[in-house]
Each structure stands twice: as structure tokens, then as C-alpha cells.
């Protein structure tokens, strides 16, 4: 396995692999988001209590799930970066963090906009909302630490450590609705139990979840490709990639 994995520690091999995956993720993201969200918006039946306001769920839940999923993924690459000193893993931290931060912001924003008509308030300092806000601050902290040092590797290491420490917040967010008496409801869908919503609502939600997963993956691939180019800017293959063949030829003369 190591012999197979090892080339991807090099920037160029990873860049090419990501380039092959990016169009697939992008196409599946567009299909999943359009079908899932479109179905949820126009074709799923209204909720018997919340009416049509519940349709916010088709973006709120996917964004919230992948805000936590991205942080967990970032903590895993952070561990790899710290233990094996693989540079692609270090760069992945900076590729994942902005995507996760935007997902977190979307979940907070849509949650607030949903909370106003249903709970009568945009914001409440309850456990779920507060821990999710802390997740946003952790993401911002990771991004800031990554860029805070003159030496990029020191910054990546600091950001990796914050990712590993901060990942403790992810189970706290997940279990906050069980541990504390929150305004926020418990999970509507889980991996193991039957969803507590009818299939006519759950099916588009699952499709939207798939679409957002692909969207998150595509955005991370895209940003990681940029990060690799940025870090290896002085190498001939990057110049060939960005400037075309003539630049590399004149350089070779």
C-alpha cells in the first residue's frame, strides 16, 4: 500500500489525480444539488406543523453535516501531516478549512433564518447553536494559524495541532441535543435508525446530502489543486501547467 500511496506525497502526482477526480465530483454535485434541493423545494409535501418553512432543511442539514464532516477530515489529514510529515496532507488542511468554514456559516445562517419563524428568534445561546458557532471560530483559527507564520511549514503544523484539538468539538455538536435541553431538535435522520420523516421528504434530503457531499469534495479538490500549485510555483511542471508549453520551452533553452 505504501508503494502505491507514496507518489501522492509529491505535488505533481496529487495534482494530476485531483484533476481526474474534479470533473466527476463537479458533475455529481450539480446533479445531486439540483435534483435534491429542487425536489425538496417544489415536489416534497409541506410539513403538517411547519408548513413550507421546513424546506430550509434541504440545505441546512447537508451544510451542517459536512461542516462537521470537513472538520473530521481535516483532523485526519492533520494527524497524517504531523506523524508522517507529508506535505500534501499539510496543504490539505488549508484546502479543507475554507470549505468547512463556508458550510458552517451556511448552517448557522439558514438555521437562524429558519429559527425566526419557528422559534420566534434568530439566535439563542443554546448548546447546539453555540457549539456550532465555536466550530466556525475553530475553522477561522485554523485558517489564521496556517497563514500566521513566515515559515509555511510551521504554520501548517500549528494549524494541524489546532485541528486535532478542535475536533473534540465535533462530537460535542452532535450530542449537544441529547446532553443538554436545547431548543434545537434531535436528528431527523441517522445512519442506523429509520428516518423520523416520511420517505416523500427523506428521499430528496438524501439526494441533497449526496449532492452536498460531492460539492464539498469538488471544492476541496479544486482548492487543494490551487494550494499545490502555490507551494510548488518555482517548479517547471507548475510553469508548464499554468503558462502553457512555450514558457517551459523558453525556460529550458
Amino acid at each position, binding site marked *: 500500500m505504501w508503494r502505491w500511496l507514496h507518489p501522492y506525497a509529491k505535488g505533481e502526482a496529487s495534482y494530476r489525480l485531483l484533476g481526474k477526480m474534479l470533473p466527476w465530483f463537479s458533475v455529481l454535485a450539480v446533479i445531486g444539488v439540483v435534483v435534491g434541493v429542487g425536489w425538496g423545494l*417544489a415536489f416534497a409535501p409541506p410539513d403538517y406543523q411547519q408548513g413550507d418553512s421546513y424546506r430550509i432543511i434541504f440545505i441546512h442539514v447537508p451544510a451542517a453535516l459536512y461542516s462537521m464532516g470537513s472538520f473530521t477530515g481535516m483532523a485526519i489529514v492533520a494527524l497524517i501531516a504531523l506523524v508522517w510529515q507529508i506535505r500534501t496532507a499539510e496543504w490539505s488542511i488549508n484546502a479543507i478549512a475554507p470549505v468547512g468554514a463556508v458550510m458552517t*456559516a451556511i448552517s448557522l*445562517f439558514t438555521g437562524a*433564518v429558519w429559527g425566526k419563524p419557528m422559534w420566534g428568534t434568530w439566535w439563542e445561546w443554546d448548546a447546539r447553536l453555540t457549539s456550532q458557532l465555536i466550530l466556525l471560530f475553530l475553522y477561522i483559527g485554523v485558517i489564521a494559524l496556517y497563514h500566521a507564520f513566515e515559515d509555511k511549514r510551521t504554520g501548517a503544523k500549528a494549524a494541524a495541532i489546532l485541528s486535532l484539538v478542535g475536533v473534540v468539538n465535533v462530537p460535542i455538536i452532535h450530542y449537544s441535543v441529547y446532553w443538554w435541553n436545547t431548543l434545537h431538535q434531535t436528528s431527523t435522520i441517522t445512519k442506523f435508525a429509520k428516518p423520523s420523516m416520511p420517505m416523500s421528504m427523506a428521499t430528496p434530503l438524501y439526494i441533497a446530502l449526496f449532492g452536498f457531499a460531492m460539492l464539498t469534495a469538488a471544492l476541496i479538490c479544486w482548492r487543494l489543486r*490551487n494550494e499545490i*500549485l502555490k507551494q510548488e510555483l*518555482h517548479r517547471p511542471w507548475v*510553469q508548464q501547467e*499554468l503558462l502553457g508549453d512555450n514558457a517551459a520551452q*523558453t525556460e529550458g533553452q
Partner: protein
Amino acid sequence: MAFESWHDFIAMGGYGFYVWLSFAGTFFALAGLMIHTMLVRKNLRKLCAQEAARQQRLARRKQQRSSKA
């Protein structure tokens, strides 16, 4: 179809403001992230051209120095 008419769809059973506000916010956040990613790539091309020019300049100077000596 859960709605009778286009107007009903926009109204969202009276929750139109909240539903469309949350969708608009999501759209702009994601669009902003994508535009930022594109701008980063565009800027990288500029930096890369500068770097290539610098490398060429260095190589030329090295050549001149060796031809003088």
C-alpha cells in the same frame, strides 16, 4: 408538485421570505467561495509568470557572467 401555481411557489405558504432568504444566502456563500477559488488560480498564473521571468533573468545573468570569465 406541492404547489398549485408559480405564485404559490414563491409565497411558500407565507414563509417565502425565510425560505428564499436562506436559499439566497447559501447561493451567495457558495458562489463567493467558487469565485475566490477562481481568483486564486488567476493570481497564481500571474505569480508564476513573474517567477518564470525571474528564473530566466537569473539564468541569463549566469550565462553572461560565465562568458565574461
